[in-house]
């Protein structure tokens, strides 16, 4: 459910399908494998292909934010549909995760 591209210190990952508790474990494992490379400082998540997300997805985003903030990096997202944007806002993620385009 995930495609990625790397340019210098920035890793762009595109998530597809539904990010619920059942999918979270696999997404977390795949992202962490990519983030094991310490040269990655900035993670850009493209959520355009994500059709569903609930609070389990919020947990995944917060966890990756912690990893990158710990090495002085950032997480940003793009392509959020209005429903995902609402959950994002509710969880206060706009304060720690930037929106990019």
């Amino acid at each position, binding site marked *: 459910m995930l495609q990625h591209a790397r340019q210098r210190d920035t890793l762009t990952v595109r998530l597809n399908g539904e990010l619920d*508790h*059942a999918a*979270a474990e696999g997404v977390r494992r795949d992202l962490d494998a990519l983030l094991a490379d310490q040269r990655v400082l900035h993670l850009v998540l493209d959520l355009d292909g994500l059709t569903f997300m*609930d*609070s389990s997805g*919020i947990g995944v985003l917060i966890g990756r934010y912690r990893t990158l903030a710990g090495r002085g990096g950032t997480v940003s997202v793009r392509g959020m549909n209005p429903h995902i944007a609402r959950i994002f806002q509710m*969880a206060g993620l706009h304060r720690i995760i930037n929106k990019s385009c």
Partner: protein
Amino acid sequence: MSIVNHMQLEFSGRPQNESFARVVISAFAVQLGPTIEEIADIKTAVSEAVTNAIVHGYEGRGGTVTLRATVDDARLLTVEVEDYGRGIDDLDQAMQPFYTSKPDAERAGMGFAVMQTFMDGLEVQTAPGKGTLVRMCKQFAPEAK
């Protein structure tokens, strides 16, 4: 108000049944002519309740989850998600936004807040050692003539 339609379903508290429950509740809600936004709200709220039953109620060990829904003649959709697991000791604390009993499992503590925001009503009955029943409702606009 009288009930005009109802459904009840039992399934195993396994993660792959989270999407199954979302599909079922969406299909049941279609009779109310919901908007895309309303369907997304209901799916998300049910997903939260079912995930809680699986993750917290049964702590990943599995058990039966019951999903019930009714529609009444005033176009009120009521959904119940019930588990027969560990129950909640301190419900007030559990319902606080950002409270989670599993912070190391990367949980945000947002489930109840999401249910509350996306539905029009939320009620929780719980008994430690017996289980938890989450009842949520959503009011639909009168049918266009």
